[in-house]
């Protein structure tokens, strides 16, 4: 990755974060914490990794992305809007009556959303079905899914992991956003999912453990994923919940609460300063 590419991705990620803050502020609710922890991943996926076409969201041979942790829709929507799937100003309609931007992703209303999700644990299984469909139909698209580290407490996640491994879904990549916090607090205290990587390996995955805010590490992990044959791939990424907005960082309280007007102004000032710095202004 060149320095210029890194700079560009960082700029885009900052804009994705601004989209998350703007949309949840406008909605007066939503889930900023986990959207911000995954903002760099959303950015990398939609601006580098996924073979998708905003002009043809239903293109049959596209790569698929399933947001298994569907409550972080604000992050996905911001990335989709910036990538050109729909107008950025529509982000302000998030969660409002008659808006197509539902609180959790709806595949039938939002261009670019490949699966309706929101009930934790289900998206990864749906993604497995999509990966299996590629095998059945002889297509070479890849399927990606993003899960929360609290979400993997759902038993169905491990049913899906068995399935991915049993059917050798090497076109499938599960990403775990290990920000360490869920609604009720520290994941290790609520119901420890650790050790995550060891569990995934035991279920037959090849696993990469990375810093989810380092684009070079994200790139290396996805490169490795493409080389693996005969087994599914997982990326366990260590992240900071609320990343990029200092007063939201590492605070479970920001899981599902929107910034008020004052907090919004503070968050936008911080992100704007960051953006100006990245753009060298």
């Amino acid at each position, binding site marked *: 990755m060149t320095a210029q590419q890194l700079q560009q991705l960082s700029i885009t990620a900052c804009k994705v974060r601004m989209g998350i803050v703007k949309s949840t502020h406008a909605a007066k609710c939503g889930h900023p914490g986990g959207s911000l922890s995954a903002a760099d991943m959303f950015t990398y996926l939609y601006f580098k990794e996924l073979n998708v076409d905003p002009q043809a969201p239903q293109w049959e041979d596209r790569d698929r992305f399933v947001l298994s942790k569907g409550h972080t829709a604000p992050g996905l929507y911001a990335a989709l809007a910036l990538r050109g799937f729909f107008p950025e100003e529509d982000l302000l309609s998030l969660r409002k009556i008659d808006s197509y931007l539902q609180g959790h992703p709806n595949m*039938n209303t939002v261009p670019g959303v490949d699966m309706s999700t929101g009930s934790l644990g289900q*998206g990864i299984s749906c993604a*497995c079905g999509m*990966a299996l*469909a590629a095998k059945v*139909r002889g297509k070479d698209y890849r399927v990606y899914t993003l899960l929360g580290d609290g979400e993997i407490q759902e038993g169905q996640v491990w049913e899906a992991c068995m399935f991915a491994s049993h059917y050798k879904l090497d076109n499938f990549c599960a990403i775990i956003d290990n920000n360490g916090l869920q609604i009720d607090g520290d994941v290790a205290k609520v119901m420890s999912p650790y050790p995550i990587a060891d569990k995934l390996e035991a279920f037959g995955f090849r696993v990469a453990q990375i810093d989810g805010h380092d684009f070079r590490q994200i790139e290396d992990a996805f490169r490795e994923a493409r080389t693996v044959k005969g087994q599914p791939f997982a990326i366990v990424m260590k992240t900071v919940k609320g990343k990029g907005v200092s007063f939201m960082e590492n605070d479970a309280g920001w899981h599902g609460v929107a910034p008020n007007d004052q907090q919004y102004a503070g968050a936008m000032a911080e992100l704007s300063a960051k953006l100006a710095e990245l753009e060298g202004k």
Partner: protein
Amino acid sequence: MADVKKMATREGYGKALVALGKEHDDIVVLDADLAGSTKTGMFAKEFPDRHFNCGIAEADMMCVAAGLAASGLTPFASSFAMFASGRAYEQIRNSIGYPALNVKIGASHGGMSVGEDGASHQCCEDFALMRSIPGMVVICPADGVEAEAATKAAYAYDGPVYLRMGRLAVPVFHEEGFQFQIGKGEVVREGSDIAIIANGLMVYEAMKAGQALAEAGIRARIINMSTIKPLDEELVLQAARECGKIITCEEHSVVGGLGEAVCAFLSENCPTPVRRIGVNDVFGCSGPAYEVLEKFGLCADNIVKVTRDFLGK
């Protein structure tokens, strides 16, 4: 009616899958370690590359089916009714129903006629669960031939369908080559003293009751209402207007099934006295299928009794 050919509805389902598999390469079949019992094993034998055992993991199976459907394939996902509709209810609701994906759920071993396995496996709540999901089509065929035709009709229909089949071999009264129409009931015996609306194996029981009632001078109209949702409202309305009294019969709880669907429709459109024959809000028990059915009043004798009592004759 003594020496009629018998066949389980699950058998008709298995036959239809094989026939459909030969004609359509978009069909894939999923099972949760019950391929021998649900009869998807018949498809697995013919098309091993398009049959996927998901292991004992119904929740995962339903969502895998959703992903397959979202990628252009037509999945049939099978298990026992208890686990298909019960264990995986929320997966069906959120990952199949809400996105309106083209998944067909083939649920076998529905109702009390599971017999010896007992209450844990006698699912009498699946119509209620599946009916409550917006856009879900719910079908319970009455015999093997109808099940085969219904499975083919489910394939031809674009959208989620729940097909409820039984374990027990039951008398076949449909002719080979019968064409199934989703949402259309069928008058299997004419009459206007009372209308008996049934589905599943209760249709044949109602036909036997119809015969016995005729011998007592009561002309009962017997209707096979195999599609519970969408309900054939026109046929129900006609029966209410022409017969004046209605009895519903189903191998399902009286809560949330065919009986309630008929009552709800009639109370708003043509208030009519109705009696519901079904499982009276209790759990089942072990025993040979027909003995269990009789114990819970799911038999021709009870239909006759309820009818005569209802008519005061």
